[in-house]
């Protein structure tokens, strides 16, 4: 049996979950033995294989039309989709901006911050993607496994990867279940 292919990407997150993945230290070698790591933010491939991967992992929530596209592409190219970390699970820290209108958020970010001078302006290039409310990955595409945590513990990530690589559905409960 060939090694299962795994791809990952990050959306509206802080990269912390991928950092936590690297925190599994030398166990990454075990993962590499079991799985074929394809497109990820830390490898050279930028898109999941067109002919599909077995497991897709998404970090971060969906906060603009570009995220939507990435999530949809990942979903369409993977058999099993994992939402990794609180942002992917429900929106997480970026979702705090859901308490404001998009207009307010952009103004704050590009015009009003203390470090912005008079030339501050909200980017309006038509090429740019459109910001949206921050949503859980599951609000845009179907998610097969939620791995909560901000970020999820390296041990939990290893458990998830190891189980998936061996063709099993990981159980996340008790000691492995953390929302914080």
């Amino acid at each position, binding site marked *: 049996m060939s090694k299962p292919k795994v791809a990952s990407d990050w959306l509206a997150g802080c990269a912390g979950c991928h950092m936590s993945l690297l925190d599994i230290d030398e166990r990454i070698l075990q993962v590499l033995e079991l799985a074929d790591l394809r497109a990820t933010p830390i490898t050279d491939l930028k898109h999941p294989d067109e002919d599909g991967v077995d497991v897709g992992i998404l970090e971060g929530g969906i906060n603009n039309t570009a995220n939507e596209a990435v999530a949809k592409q990942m979903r369409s190219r993977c058999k099993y989709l994992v*939402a990794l970390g*609180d942002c992917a*699970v*429900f*929106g*997480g*820290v970026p*979702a*705090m901006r*859901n*308490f404001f209108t998009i207009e307010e958020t952009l103004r704050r970010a590009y015009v009003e911050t203390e470090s912005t001078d008079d030339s501050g302006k909200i980017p309006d290039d038509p090429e740019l993607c459109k910001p949206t*409310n921050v*949503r*859980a990955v*599951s*609000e845009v595409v179907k998610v097969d*496994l*939620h*791995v*909560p*945590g*901000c970020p999820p513990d390296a041990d939990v990530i290893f458990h998830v990867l190891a189980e998936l690589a061996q063709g099993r559905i990981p159980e*996340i*409960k*008790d000691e492995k*279940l*953390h*929302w*914080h």
Partner: protein
Amino acid sequence: MIHIKIDGKELEVPEGTTVLNAARQAGVDIPTLCDHPALEPYGGCRLCLVEVEGARTLQPACTMPAGNNMVVHTATEKVKSARKFVLSMIFSERNHFCMYCQVSGGDCELQNAAYGEDMTHWPIQPNWQPYEVDASHPYFVMDHNRCILCRRCVRACAELSGNFTLGMEERGAKTILVADLGIPLGDSSCISCGSCIQVCPTGALIDRWSAYLGKDKDTQSTQTVCIGCSVGCGIEVLSRNNNLVRVEGNWDAEVNGGVLCEVGRFLPMVEERDRVVTPMVRKDGKLKAATWEEALNTIAEKYQPLIGHANNGVAAMVSTRLPAEVLYTFKQVFADNFGSNMVTSTDEEKFATLNSVKSEVGVYEGKLTDLEEADAVMTVGIDLTKDHQVAGFFIKRAIPNGTKVIPVNYEANGMDAFTPYATKINKNADLAFVKTLSANLNNEEAAELQNKAGLETAEIDKISSILKSAEKSVLVYGADFTQPEETFRALVKLAKETNSKLVGITGKANSTAAAQYHLDKPFVMNGHQSAMIVLGDEEPTQTMIKKVENSPFLVVLSSYHSALTAKADVVLPVTTWLEQDGHYVNLDGKIQEAHKSLQSPIDVKSNLDVLELLAAKLNLELSAESLVAAEKAV
């Protein structure tokens, strides 16, 4: 008895037992949120739903009484999916960001309940409507974003503290927790007892310190007693790395059943006085740091020749915040060995005089527990919303059950707002009032007294009819009288006439023990050559300072710097209440043991050790087992 079967376990429970409590007895775990063992069942959150054979729908276990031959299932698929649904609804009602919530990761009952159901995510998204965060209160914060509307706080405020500050406003999705009629908590009628934060299952009500100092699982807990007053409430002191994290009421404590007042719960958290960390001896007019050896030698030198001086020797005063062991040793050193005629405690004179007549009460003596069972309570010479507050809670919380409460004062009493029977008498007229009441009960003429008390006949009539018709009346007295002995005797007479219990709510943590050791006379220097003040962590009063400041040689054992230590010739650093063990006798005469919960700073010694060191320096005889002796004596 009722026979019930829960998840296959059969058991007998008394009639009226809820299914939840029966399940607990059977060792079957049913998750709950709005339920709290110290509060009346409420049945609001629906997390405790169970399947009862024969019932069409799932039933809340916390409110449902166990029925005979009832068969209950708590872990069926139907029950489990209902729990997940209930939790999903609760999460989606407000905004929970567990990753930066202070109670997340162990102390949140909502989060733990979700873990219990293996929930990896919320099937329904949060509300995303911002809710207010009320940070106006000095001791705690209310974050409405995390409130699950379980009403535990509302019930605790009413059922435990009798303060009725909290309530719910609006209905349905708009329901919101409010203080009074919707004003900031800091401006409300809240008395800072903290019962609400102790019962809040989530991070909605959190105290300002502990949330950031460590989760419960990271803290050390010590069960001990509050020494804020003579009620002697049981507390749990949480600490982490020798830092105080939080004080909680001990739910299992007989005296208070988990309730505390501001003094017990929050004042220890805002202690800001400067610690005395090294012995100090006055040299060339200035207090200078010294070694223990130097300081003790300085005292010993002065004191050796004063041994045996009844007059003209050492006048000694000890704090009634200190354990019985310290009081007893103190007495041995200065009364038994020095033979001084001025060996007493820091208690106010009035309380001391009251002690001398206290034995006259006989069978009418009541206890704190009588307050809870009373159907009429009259308080004289005390405002139980200012001190001994937990005793006040016992009275206030009984009011909704029909207990008639008559606070008698010459000025405003915090209790007035809770009862229609608040009674205002003239200043210093407590004795006249009690006597008028007696006369009225006996149909005697007492116009002059009544005039002095400043009450209308109708008012007196009303009070006597309440006391007469009550089946279990209690008279509560404080120490705020001008003629303590006479007033006390008049109260004893009134208790006999109305068949009431008489409960004295006075004194500091160990006043009762101090009185038993006869450490209760008014302090005067009266020609003594030295004043020895074993102050512990008590804050000296102006009166105390005035009395001793001119003493030729002033020794103070104190945990904190104060105007008194500044005047001393020798200051010895001693432990605070949290740093020492020992026994306390509360106002009911109940002996309780306090346990050390924090380590003292390096150069600080316990009050007891210092007295013993001093005795050794002076070659004094102390009974070898002074601790045992102290226990026997109280």
